[in-house]
Each structure stands twice: as structure tokens, then as C-alpha cells.
């Protein structure tokens, strides 16, 4: 019962956070940008988000930068049979009146050479660069290490606390 209540509360909070956590510039709306908390020995991170394009011409995410990382690149995972290959990509197309989703197993913004630990419930600054819309500044929320994405949670409440067991 309590678990259900907590789960329901989490969903409510996540939904309201996702609604509040939105950046709009011109025709582009960036919603719930997130990353995962890291260990001190981890020097990389990945940022995920949803990019909506309300305009009638396509745009392209071509790069990003962050004061929290030495290098920031746009990466994608490509399944070749059963082999996962992570590669840098030239950009991610945001179709006209469409959406580009950066999610685990697909595209992400790769933070290389993290300057500090990414702590849960903090935020990191990120500047996205689009071919047409130009630069958009966003704040990505640092979620639990095993967070799977909005609406997917972390599988269970218990898993989420493992990060705090240190």
C-alpha cells in the first residue's frame, strides 16, 4: 500500500517536474533533459531529452557544450546484429512538426572529461547548438544512476536508493 502510494507520488512529482522542466526557444521545445549520477571514478556521462519542433521546417542538433565537461559530443548507439557500437554522429534531425528523442540505447549527448561528480538531484548546465535555431541553454537534472527515463522510473523504489547507500 505504502509502496503504491510512494509510486503514485513519484509519478505525480515526475510529471509535474517534467512539465515545469521545459525550455522553449522559437519553434523548439526541449523537455525533461536528464543525466545520471556518477561515481568519482567515472569521467563520462550521457544526457537525454525530448526535442519537439513546432515549426514547419526541420532542424538539426549539431553540437553541445557544458562548463561541467571538457568535451561534449553528440553520440548514437548502433546495433549491428547483437553488437552495440557507440559512435559520434554529425547531428540528430528534428523533423518539421515532429520530435527527436534522445534516450538510452539511441542518441545521447556525451559528456567527456567530467570536471566534478554528478550528484543526484542537482543540475548541470548545457548549451545545445542547432543548425537553424542556434544556441539554446538548458539545465539537465541529475537522476539516480539506474534511472531509465521519464515514465520508466528505475524499475523500483529500492533500486533508486542504492546510489545513496555509499
Amino acid at each position: 500500500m505504502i509502496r503504491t502510494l510512494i509510486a503514485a507520488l513519484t509519478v505525480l512529482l515526475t510529471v509535474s517536474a517534467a512539465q515545469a522542466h521545459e525550455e522553449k526557444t522559437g519553434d523548439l521545445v526541449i523537455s525533461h533533459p536528464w543525466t545520471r549520477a556518477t561515481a568519482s571514478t567515472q569521467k563520462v556521462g550521457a544526457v537525454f531529452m525530448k526535442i519537439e519542433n513546432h515549426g514547419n521546417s526541420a532542424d538539426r542538433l549539431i553540437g553541445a557544450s557544458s562548463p561541467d565537461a571538457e568535451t561534449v559530443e553528440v553520440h548514437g548507439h548502433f546495433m549491428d546484429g547483437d553488437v552495440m557500437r557507440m559512435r559520434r554522429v554529425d547531428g540528430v534531425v528534428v523533423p518539421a512538426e515532429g520530435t527527436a528523442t534522445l534516450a538510452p540505447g539511441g542518441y545521447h549527448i556525451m559528456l567527456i572529461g567530467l570536471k566534478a561528480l554528478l550528484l543526484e538531484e542537482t543540475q548541470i548546465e548545457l548549451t545545445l547548438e542547432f543548425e537553424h535555431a542556434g544556441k539554446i541553454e538548458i539545465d539537465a537534472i541529475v537522476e539516480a544512476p539506474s534511472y531509465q527515463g521519464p515514465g520508466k522510473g528505475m524499475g523500483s523504489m529500492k533500486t533508486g536508493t542504492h546510489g545513496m547507500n555509499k
Partner: protein
Amino acid sequence: MRYKLHIGVVLLVVAVFGFGAWLNLRQSEPAEGTSVGGMVLGVDIGGPFELTDQTGATFTDRDLAGEYALIYFGYTYCPDVCPTELGQMAAAIDELGADGARVRPVMITIDPQRDTPKVLAEYVPLFHERLVGLTGTEAEIRDVAKAYRVFFRKFEDPSYTDYLMDHTSFVYLLAPNGKVAGMFRYGTPPEDIAAAIRQHMRSNS
């Protein structure tokens, strides 16, 4: 004439089905790649290994004898797929409730150059309090990956900031007898992994 042709067709069909049935009877083990409830069965893989855990101590397959284990081959420099799979593994164990205590989560690195015991010690508790992180020499990792038929290769390119690892992304279920009971493809939901483990526990108790 047409009648004879029909008989011929019927005989052929019977022969083909009969041969199929005979083949099926011959294979008491499920055919490789058969998937039941998200678990791929009949994979003749696994075997002994001797590696080093996150505390620097020797850890072998015998340390897992008598309990279930979920084994994942990944690396800590992987910010996307590996945390996702480790999170799914932890969620599957939580999903099992009390039975989850009978399942040990294990991560074996395919990037021993970066993943020293010290690096793993910081990393593994992020996902599960009982997650064991294993590393070894290049040769030891090559051997265990070969035994589990894990493909991995370093991807280096001068235009990249650092090297990356290409790798297969499966979660393996090791039964208490030390045999691999099956494996789960990338993206198998934790509920499906938990259900397959529960079914295995029930049919082997």
C-alpha cells in the same frame, strides 16, 4: 494420374513432418536461440573463470556456486547502455522480493585497461549493494568473454577524444549448478527477467 500425384504429395508431406518430428525427438535440449518469456534458452556457454573483484580479491565461478547470478559484460566508460542494463538487473532482483537475495548481480568488465578494482569499487554500489564488479588481465577477460561468447573490440579513432568499446549486451542467468540457464537480450524488461528466474527456481526446487 492426378490421384497418384496427390498420394505423392501426401507422402512427401508426411516424410517432411516425420523427419522434423524425429529431429525434435533427438534434441531433448531446447534448440539454441529458442526464446521463452524473454529468456534465450539452450545456449551452451559459460565455464570456469578466475578474476579479481572490486576489493582486489580473487573471485572465481566457484564463488557463485549454489546461488543464482545475473552476469553482465560491460564497462564503466559506457554512459548509456551499461547503466541501463545494470539498472534493469537490479530492478529484476528487487522485483523478486525475498527470492532476490538468492540472485547475485555480477558485472564483468570488457575494458580492464580502464576498469581497475578501484574504479569498479566506486561504480558498482551505484547500482546494487551486492553487485560484484570483476576485472582481470587482458588475457583473463578475453578467456571469460570467449567462454560466454561475448564479442568486444576496442574502437579507436584519432578524431575521437578517447577509445570506446564495441560489445554485445546480454544479461546471462547462471543457475546454482554453475550452468548458464539462459540469456536476455538488451532491453528485456526487468519483470520478464524476474519472471524467468522465478520460473527456473520453481521448476528446480
